[in-house]
């Protein structure tokens, strides 16, 4: 069967009921979608299927034949980050990074669908994604920034702009 991932057509050889997650990670070596709980509970495997965030761990690949799949690699490139990727970097919205791909794709879809900077609306939209490191505060800050249309200097991160001047050697 045929599958388009980030605009690139692929001929898939995995069995039809293989999960989309396994096809992405094992057959296509696209590992940004993470195998977290593999029960649909954590959100780390989220990809966009025709622009809608879906759990790839619960999706048999045969069910998405002909669909356009987007992973974070399809949002932007290191030299040309998508707004949501810039905002996550700028606001230090990732620590270990395991939830980040799913979070960014859900955030991207939220903003694409007209989502606002309202905190409760963001919590509602991203509520199915578990993050253990950040306490969600900076993730919500980042999504709100994208929804507002904030622009960032991609050469600077928030962590970089707030470095304490230690004063050097006494």
């Amino acid at each position: 069967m045929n599958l388009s991932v980030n605009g690139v057509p692929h001929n898939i050889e995995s069995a039809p009921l293989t999960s989309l997650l396994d096809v992405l990670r094992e057959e296509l070596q696209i590992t940004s979608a993470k195998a977290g709980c593999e029960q649909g509970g954590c959100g780390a495997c989220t990809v966009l299927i025709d622009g809608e965030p879906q759990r790839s761990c619960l999706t048999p690949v045969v069910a998405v034949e002909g669909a356009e799949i987007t992973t974070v690699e399809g949002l932007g490139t290191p030299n040309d980050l998508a707004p949501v990727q810039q905002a996550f970097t700028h606001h230090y919205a990732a620590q270990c990074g395991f939830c980040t791909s799913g979070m960014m794709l859900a955030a991207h879809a939220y903003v694409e669908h007209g989502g606002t900077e309202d905190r409760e609306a963001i919590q509602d939209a991203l509520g199915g994604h578990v993050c253990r490191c950040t306490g969600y505060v900076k993730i919500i800050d980042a999504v709100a920034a994208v929804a507002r249309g904030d622009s960032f200097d991609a050469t600077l991160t928030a962590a970089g702009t707030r470095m304490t001047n230690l004063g050097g050697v006494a």
Partner: protein
Amino acid sequence: MAVHKGRGFAAIEYPTGMNQNGDPSQAWIKVKPDGRIDVFAGTSDIGNGSKTIQSQIVAETIGVPYEWITYDNSNTDSSPVCTGTFASRATFVAGKAAEKAALAVRARILEIAGKELEIDPADLEIVDGEVLAKGAPQKKISVSDVAAAATWTYGELITGTGAQLKPYASIVEPETGKVDLSPHSAISYASCAAEVEVDDETGIITVLRLWQCYDVGKSINPTLVEGQIEGGAMQGLGLGILENCYPYYPSVEHRGGEFGSYLTPGMEDMPQIDTIIIENPSADGPYGAKGIGEMANNAQPPAIASAVFDAVGVWVTELPITPERVLRALEANAEPRRIGKLVIFDEELSINTVGNGPVKLEVLV
């Protein structure tokens, strides 16, 4: 039946760094011919930002821009020993090793610059990548030119190493176990205030707000420190009201067998989180820093417990403070209803989650 609001407070102290009896960290630094700096260290960055923090420490200590630093912790063959990222030690212990290595590099840069400028190294300083004569900054040479001179003129590689190890304690009084050094190098202090709502019908606790006040010694990067404290706040919230591997320990029958049966706080459990960073410097950490990693989730559970007491007047003395435990505490606290000689404990509060439905207790006295 009503929803009650309450506020509670807890304060903790926390020994940062596994700094008793060993646990070394090492770093080594080399200066490339263009003056750019390679730092090799074994500290794994698990998202806590130790690469950023240690790069900042090296840049500030040598006196070069942060962007000149490449931090390589990529493998255990090329990197020196660091026992790891645990016990809030990545900044406090490993950061100190990086600072010591940077001091050695700085000293060698000044010596070579002294030869090039024909000035005593003691009269030189390094500011933003340039070696300047103190009081006469027009006499200067860039760190890049010093590194080039080291490579092409003097035939040497500018390097520096540093290591941090708390000496092993020896017991000086076998009878008492008294040792000859203080047990910890740095004690951090923290407090948390919690505001909660408790529904006395369902026992459900909603955490509305957490104020976090944490002493980190020196906040080398406030954004990263906030990230640790905010993440700790949600972990502490989970430990306070949600998370339990063995809800009926020592019985293992109700142990979770899958991801979904372990209750981790989600985005919708988020209270408003206010973070305040306190700087109470340590004597042993780099630039006075202490650790922040592990202590960040310690103060919330007791703060929530005392807020629950403030709200509904019962102390729940086991964690997590589940709805069941709240209701059992309320029930134990409730005055029984009396009809003549019949005493009826509040049947609406009587629950039996592991049996066959609600229990109605009627006792004839």
